[in-house]
C-alpha cells in the first residue's frame, strides 16, 4: 500500500474512530462536575486514617498499593528486557567508558546542576507524603543526576561512581523491599500490604506508616532503574563507536 492510500484510509477510519470516542465521552458528566464518590471518600478519610497530606501518595502506596506493586514491576521487567535486548551483540561485555567528553559549556552546566538536582531529587522522594512528589517523581529526578554527571565528565567517571552491579543491587533492593513491606503484616495474621507501622504526626516527614517506607523503596527502585537504562544506552552507543 502506498503512502497516499494509507493516509486516505486513515482519514476515513480515523474520522469514524474520533466520532466514536466523542460519542463515548458525551456520556460523561461535564467537565468540572466530578460526581464522586471515590475521590470524595479518600479526601474525607485519608488524613485521619493515614496521617499524610498528599493524598495521591496515600492512594498509590496504600489504598491502591497492590496495583502500584505491579506498576513498579512493569518498570523492573522492562529494564531487564532492555538489557537483554541490548546485550546480545559481540564486543566488550562491560562498557569501557571512553565515550563522552562534551564541550566545556555543557560540561559546566552538568557540573553545576548535578548537586542541585541530587538534593532536589532526594527532597522530592522524602516529602512524597506531604507535598506533591514521591518515589516515582523523585526517582526520575535523581536519575537525571546520573545523566548530568555523564554530561559533566564522561561515561567512565559515571561508571566508576555508580558501577553497574551496584545499580543492579539497588534496583533489586527497591523492588524487593516493597514486597517485603507487603509480606511483613502476614506474620501477624493481617492482609498483604496492611499499614502496620505507627502512623506518626500529621504533616511530619515520618508520617504515614508503611507509606513512607514503600515510598523510599520505590524512589530507590526508580532511580536505579533509570540509571541502568542510561548505562545500557551508553554502553550500546559506545560499542557502536568502537566498531569499525
Amino acid at each position, binding site marked *: 500500500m502506498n503512502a497516499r492510500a494509507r493516509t486516505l484510509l486513515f482519514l476515513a477510519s480515523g474520522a469514524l474512530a474520533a466520532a466514536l470516542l466523542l460519542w463515548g465521552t458525551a456520556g460523561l458528566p461535564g467537565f468540572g462536575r466530578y460526581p464522586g464518590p471515590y*475521590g470524595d471518600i479518600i479526601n474525607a478519610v485519608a488524613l485521619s486514617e493515614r496521617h499524610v497530606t498528599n493524598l495521591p501518595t496515600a492512594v498509590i502506596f496504600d489504598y491502591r498499593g497492590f496495583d502500584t506493586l505491579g506498576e513498579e514491576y512493569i518498570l523492573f521487567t522492562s529494564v531487564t528486557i532492555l538489557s537483554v535486548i541490548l546485550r546480545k551483540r559481540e564486543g566488550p561485555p562491560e562498557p569501557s567508558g571512553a565515550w563522552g567528553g562534551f564541550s566545556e559549556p555543557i560540561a559546566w552546566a552538568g557540573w553545576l546542576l548535578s548537586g542541585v538536582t541530587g538534593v532536589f531529587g532526594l527532597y522530592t522522594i522524602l516529602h512524597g507524603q506531604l507535598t506533591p512528589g514521591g518515589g516515582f517523581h523523585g526517582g526520575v529526578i535523581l536519575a537525571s543526576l546520573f545523566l548530568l554527571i555523564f554530561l559533566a565528565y564522561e561515561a567512565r567517571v559515571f561508571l566508576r561512581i555508580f558501577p553497574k552491579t551496584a545499580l543492579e543491587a539497588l534496583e533489586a533492593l527497591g523492588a524487593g523491599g516493597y514486597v517485603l513491606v507487603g509480606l511483613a503484616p502476614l506474620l501477624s495474621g493481617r492482609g498483604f500490604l496492611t499499614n502496620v507501622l505507627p502512623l506518626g504526626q500529621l504533616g511530619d516527614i515520618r508520617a504515614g506508616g508503611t507509606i513512607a517506607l514503600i515510598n523510599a523503596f520505590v524512589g530507590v527502585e526508580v532511580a536505579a532503574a533509570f540509571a541502568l537504562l542510561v548505562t545500557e544506552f551508553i554502553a550500546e552507543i559506545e560499542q*557502536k563507536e568502537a566498531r569499525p
Partner: protein
Amino acid sequence: MTVTGYLPYAAAVWVFMIGLFGIVTSRNLIHLITCLSVVQSATYILILAVGYRTGAAAPVFADQPVNTPAVDPVVHALALTDIVVAATVTALLVALTMQVYAERGTLDPNELRPMRD
C-alpha cells in the same frame, strides 16, 4: 450540558487522533515513538478531566484546611501509573529501534520488509 463542558474531552480525542495520524504517516521510527507518546498523553488529559471539579483545590492538604473541596486524588494516582508505563514503553521501543537500525540500517518503517533469514 453546555458544549464547553465537553471541550477537555474533545481535546483528549483530538490529541489521540493527531498522534495516531503521526504514527500512520511516520517515516522514522524515532518520530513514531514520539507520536505514540502523544497518543498516550491524550489519556492523561482524559483521566485528569474526569476527576476535575470546578473551583476545587489540589488533593494536597499540606497548606490548606482539611475540609477544602478538592479534586479526585484517585485519578491523579492513575495518571501517575499511566506516565510510568509510558516511560517504560518508550524506553523499550527505543531499544528495539536501535536493534532495528543495527540489523537493517534504516529507521524508515516503509523500508522494513519481513526478515528472510
